Each structure stands twice: as C-alpha cells, then as structure tokens.
C-alpha cells in the first residue's frame, strides 16, 4: 500500500476596485488536504478542509479503496523542495489605492474595476519516499476598463501576474495600453496581416486539445497518427511547462516532475508526443509527461497542463520585419470547426507600428484561418523580448485574415 498526502494552502488578501474606487478587502486562509491510498489495483481518496485529521482521512480513504481502478505504480522516492525567491509584496490595500489614484488622475476618461491580490500559496505531496513542496508568494492584478462615455459594460482588460509586484512597471504597461486605447486609428484594408497575440489561449486552444493523450490515443485528435511527423512550422516548438514565477508547481497531482526546460510536445514543427498522466501513459503506451490534475479530494486524472510556445531568438520588432501589425487584446467567443477552421471576433485590437509599439485602437474586426495555416506556413514566431515585462508575457505573431 502506498500513501500520498497532498496539501494546498492559500493565504491571500484581495483589494476590490469598483468604478475607480477601492471598496473592499477580502482575506482568505484556506487549507485543503487529500490522502490517497494505492493498493496496487485501485486508489482510494479522502479529503478535508482546514486542519486535517490524518488518521480519519486514512480511514475514509480505506473505505473507498477497491472501486476506482489504478493498477500502476504511483510516483515514489522523489525529494525536491522549491521556494520561488522574492514575493512578499507587502500590504495590498495601499498598493491598490496607489494604482487607482494614478490611473484615475492620468486617465480621467477611463473607469477601472477589478482586483489586486497578494498571496502566499504552498503545494505539497508526500509519502512513501515522495516529498515534494512548492512555495510561491505572488500577486495578480486583473482590471476591466471602459471609457466613461462608452455604453459597453467593458471595453477591455489589463492585468499582470507574477512573483514580484512592481507598481511602477505595471503602471507603465497600463499607461501604454490606455494611451493606445484612447487614440482611435483608421484600420488597414481587410486582408492578411501580421496578427499579434499576447496570450496564447485563443490561438492555441484547438491544438492544446489535440495534444491531449486520451484524444490522441483514441483517434479523436487531429494529430492522431501524426506522431513524429512534421505537421507545423519549423519555427514552432510547444512545451509542457511549469511557470514557477506564475505560481505553477514543478510537479503535477501525481508527483511527476516537469523539468525546468519543459517537456517538448512539438519540436521544430514535428509532433513529438501528447501530454499524459500515469493512467493515460500506461493504458496507451505513451511517454509520461506529468499532466495530471486533481481536486484536493479527487483521483488524479488527465488535466490541461500549462503549454507555452518556445520563444524565438528574435525580438518582436524583428518578427514584424518592418511591417505594422494588429495586436489582439480582447477576443471572446472564437472557436474552431471540427476540421480546424478558425474564426473569432476581436472586440479590442491595437495597431502596432513596425517596432511592436501600440499606436492606436482599431475598430472591432474578425480574424480567421485554419489550425494548419496559423501554426504552419503562417506562423511567424514568439518574441524573445516580453510585450508585458512585468509578467514576462511575450508576443506570438502569426499571419491571419483580418476583416474590418
């Protein structure tokens, strides 16, 4: 019998901002504990909130052993502790007041609402030689904004997240965004343009789903039967990655460690492997990548790990190659067809000059492509320099049809 005890603790303070006023403070001190028993054939789990009674958890986990099959060896004999340096960002309330005061003073035409959180988050997994822990002290700023004369509920979003709160840098980034937002510019002609994404979720969502080990192995992925084949641009390397500065632990819910350099899923355009947990890897004979996730009291199962595009060695300015670009700031509701066609409305976009600096706000538009084109011949690359330095967010460039 192997026993694993996992904990997640969260101690954070959040300042709430409504229409340019800091109007709330929320404190949370939450501890979640789960105990898993593996008997070689099945797994039993029990969990609790607050201070745990381990003997009670063990008793309850034993009671449910025997129903959920798990005839594989769980991780053991791994010891690693990691405390992300830095953090300890002080008191959230004065920082939120300072942000709001600066923005409302400089941009009286813009209303901001949202949250600023400073927190300390610890994850651990231990038992039978397994002893892993990860401690991150970090921050998250998430603001919606709108012009005072806008009849929309939200015009856009700005934010930052990471370890070391740097108010001056965050304000610098928001100022750059707000200046562009307040300066409408005429759109270029509809057609194929360099399109810049500062977050990769929208453009990569289909491919991330297709990299799921279960979907791959069962033939329901567009990448099924394409392992070791060159399917995308040589400029594209996709890594399963644990961004410690963002608070992602270096181990998954089963204790599989993600190496610091990441796990390649697509390398130089060649599909290497899908992401897997222990169950999927063993059931289908795939390499284990450490992509298990679990509720604190649940059996680990295949989740969605953090996946990032490996940055190129070229700056955004170099990637744009002397041409202006369209930076997608807000796009909600886009999707792919079953065969990979992509369409998305863009609610907020900026025109970037050839150096990658935002020069003004564009009218609403729509973007379209296919997964094979946007990550294939039309994929340009990810910048070596961050577009948002406070959170080290880089810019991904691909050519797409844009309709204004």
């Amino acid at each position, binding site marked *: 019998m192997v026993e694993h005890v996992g904990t997640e603790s969260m101690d954070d303070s959040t300042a709430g901002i409504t229409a*340019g006023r*800091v109007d709330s*403070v929320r404190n949370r001190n939450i*501890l979640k504990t789960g105990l898993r028993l593996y008997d070689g054939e099945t797994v039993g789990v029990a969990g609790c909130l607050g201070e745990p009674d381990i003997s009670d958890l063990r008793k309850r986990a034993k009671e449910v052993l025997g129903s959920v099959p798990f005839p594989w060896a769980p991780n053991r004999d791994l010891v690693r502790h990691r405390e992300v340096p830095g953090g300890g960002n002080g008191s959230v309330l004065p920082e939120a007041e300072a942000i709001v005061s600066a923005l409302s003073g400089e941009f009286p035409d813009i209303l901001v609402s949202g949250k600023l959180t400073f927190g300390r988050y610890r994850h651990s997994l231990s038992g039978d030689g397994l002893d892993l822990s990860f401690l991150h002290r970090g921050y998250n700023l998430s603001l919606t904004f709108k012009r005072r004369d806008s009849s929309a509920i939200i015009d856009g979003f700005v934010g930052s997240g990471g370890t070391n709160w740097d108010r001056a840098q965050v304000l610098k980034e928001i100022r750059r965004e707000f200046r562009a937002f307040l300066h409408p510019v005429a759109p270029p002609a509809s057609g194929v343009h360099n399109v810049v994404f500062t977050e990769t979720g929208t453009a990569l969502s289909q491919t991330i789903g297709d990299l799921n080990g279960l979907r791959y192995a069962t033939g*329901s992925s567009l990448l099924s039967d394409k392992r070791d084949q060159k399917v995308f641009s040589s400029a594209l390397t996709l890594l399963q990655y644990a961004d410690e500065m963002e608070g992602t632990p270096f181990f998954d819910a089963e204790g599989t460690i993600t190496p610091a350099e990441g796990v390649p899923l697509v390398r130089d355009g060649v599909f290497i492997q899908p992401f897997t947990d222990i169950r999927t890897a063993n059931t289908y004979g795939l390499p284990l990548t450490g992509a298990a996730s679990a509720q604190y009291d649940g059996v680990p199962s295949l989740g969605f790990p953090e996946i990032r595009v490996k940055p190129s060695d070229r700056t955004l300015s170099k990637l744009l190659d002397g041409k202006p670009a369209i930076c997608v700031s807000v796009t*909600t*509701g886009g999707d792919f067809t*079953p065969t990979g066609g992509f369409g998305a409305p863009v609610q907020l976009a900026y025109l970037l000059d050839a150096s990658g600096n935002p020069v003004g706000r564009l009218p609403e538009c*729509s973007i379209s492509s296919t997964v094979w084109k946007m990550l294939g011949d039309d994929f340009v690359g990810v910048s070596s320099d961050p577009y948002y330095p406070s959170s080290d967010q880089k810019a991904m460039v691909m050519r797409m049809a844009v309709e204004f």
Partner: protein
Amino acid sequence: MYRFPEGVFSDVRLEESVTTVIAFVMGRLEQRRERTERTAFIRVFDGIRWYFSSLTDPRQSTVQEKLDDLAAMASAGRIEGHPVLDRLSRHRGERISGRPEGTVESKTAVLESYFGELKAFPQIASWQGFIGDGYSRKRIISSLGADISFDRFNCGIGIGFSMAEGESRASEQFMKTGLVPGDLEGRQEDFRARLQKTLHYLGNAVDAVAGEHTVVLSPLAAGVFAHESFGHKSEADFMTGDETMLREWPLGARVGPDILSIWDDGTVPGTGYTPFDDEGTPGGRTFLVKNGVLSGRLHSAITAAELREEPTGNARAVSFNFEPIPRMTTTCIEPGDISKKDLFAGIEDGIFVETVKHGSGMSTFTIAPNLAYRIRGGEISEPLKVSVITGNVMETLGEIDGLSREWEVLGFVGGGCGKMEQYPLPVGFGGPFVRVRRMQVN
C-alpha cells in the same frame, strides 16, 4: 448567536454542501467522490468599505473571532443612514427541503445504464460519462436581524463523445439535469437520438458560407444568447459609478420588438434555483425586457443602493471563497405565439443552430454552434460546420422577428456561468425557438 460588532453592518453566511461526482472515461471508472464541506463567509461594512473573510472552520468561536478582526479593520460609526441598510435583508425563516436519498452505487448504476447505447456507434473514438449532484444548505445571519436557512439540490448526467471517420471529426454531449435523482433515469431514447444526429453530422456536414444569414436559434441556443447578450448587461455592478451606462440603459427604453420579453427568476426549479440570494434577499421574477422595453436590472443590496433601486435576489457567490455579486439565476426569453413549424416556414434560406459549445457577450455577443443546419424552403436540411455566429447585441435584439410557442428551460451539467474570478455558478436558461432576420455567420 454572534456578538455583532457595534457601529458597522455585518453578516455571516454558513454553508454546508454535499456533492457527488462519478466519472467514467471510455468505460473505466476514474472518479467516485462524495464531498462534504462546512464553511463560512463573513462580511463587515463600515459605510465606506466592505471587509470579507472566508473560513474553512465555521465553529462559532472562530467565526466570532474573524468578525471581531474584520470589525477592527473597519471604522465604526459611519454607517448610520447609509442607503444600503434599507436594502439589506431582515428576513427570518426557513425553507428547507432536505437532501434526496441516493447512494453512490445507485447513481453509478443510473449512469452505466446509458453506456449500452454507445456500442451501436463504432465511429465513437472517445467518450466520457459523468453523473453528479450537489446539495447545499445555507444560513444567513446579520446584525440587522436577518436569520434565514434555505437549501437547494440539483443533479445532472452528461455523456460527451467524439466521433471520427477518416479526416472528419464531430464532438457532442448529451446532458440532462434534474431536481431529484429519478429525473436522470430512462432517457436512453433521447441519448440514442443525439448519437444518431451526431453521426449524420459527422458524415454530411459542409462548411457554412460566411456572411449574413437568417438564423433560427433552438431553445438551448436562445437561452445562451439571452444569458450572454442581455443577462450580463443587466447585472447592475457593471453600472455602478457609470453615468453613461445609466444614461444609455434607462429603464423604459425600447431595446427590441414588442414580442420580446426576457426575465430572470430565482424561483424557477432547476440549476438556477435561488430561493434566497447570498445576502438573504428572496428570489423572484425580474423582467429585464418586457414587450421590447428595458424593464429591470439584476441587483445586490449594494448595487440597488447605488442606483436607488431595489434588490432583486441576485447577489450570488460561487462558493465560500467569494463575496456575493449580481449574477443571473434562471434567465429566459418568453415564448411567442406561433408554432415552431410556422416559424421555420417563412425562411427560404437560413441556418438553424441546434446545440452550442459556448457563448460570450460584451457589446458583441458570440455563440459557437456545435450542431448547425441549413434551412431550405422552411425545412431543416444539410448539416453545417460553423465556427461562430456573432453580432452586436442591441442590433441583434432588434432583428428578432419570431418566437415559437414551444419552449424549454435548461441547465448545463458540471459547468456554469463565469464572471471574472467566480466560476462556475449554476444557472438556468432557456427560451423558445427564436428567428433572427440577420446574423453574422463565420
């Protein structure tokens, strides 16, 4: 029960929840969980700022200690005469139905009773089955004298599947929500029909022609549209401190045709059932649009005070981790007076959206269809691949020109509504078949 601090408003929300989750992947049991949590959320308001704390230890002594801590952060003596006090609940009473009987074994058996249907479809490459239920019992006690206990229970079954044949792919879900576990039994015929439809889609779907089309939304798609396009715009926290929104969205303004009415109602049984909200305000029906005219907004006590309106029972928190904010409960478009057949009959060439993957809504709304079809000569014809339909909310409301008598109230299984950090909140939604003269299809 508690010594509420002097000079401030405070309330305590005690929650006890019991949830069951049973999940199979490709016929293998992967999750079998029954969870009980007892938690608390505390609020203190001093007239200027709110102070919140969430606790995983709801013992009276711990709650009292936190109440006192929060009160020490606040400034007493500034609350008197604050308009929010007139709008915060003073209700007392109990509305408890209890948690329906049912073992994990019996729930597992209900889910497994559907699996046989999958065998007739070799095109199914992968599938996952889920059955779950959630019971929550809450008590809200405040310094104004409110003391309310209420509960709610929902259950649902969902089977998601992906079919593949050659290069073609199609994914769909069969979902059924219920008020008692027995509601989830015996729906195999509906499941089989959904499988057959998806198989037909897999083999026959062609790319839709992008552009403007006349579109008919199913009750599911219409419900998502109402939720995304208009429901969120009606949540009053988006309007507080925003003179433009209040000016542009005055109650009494015309926003759609006479046939269009949209309401939100926390008393409708189902996934959005909210007999009292998380401030203790009773739920009820709020018309957002009545006969095409803007008629109401969704409020917490806080937003109602800010806008000098009345609370509507829509202050909801997704869990003990969060403060209540204005959210939808069950949001529906009211049915019309023509038959579904007649609604389609007027369309020579259009698109019918039967099921959806997701939707979103700002000033522009989007709906990502799953199963969609061409309408030819008033009849549903070949299946279409559509990535997204989209439009300006206000312009699209004005383009609605037909509502069927047939209508449904629905709920998602295992998911819900997301708003900023709070996701997923169980909500209900629905409506009739809705005909929109022009919508952008991509």
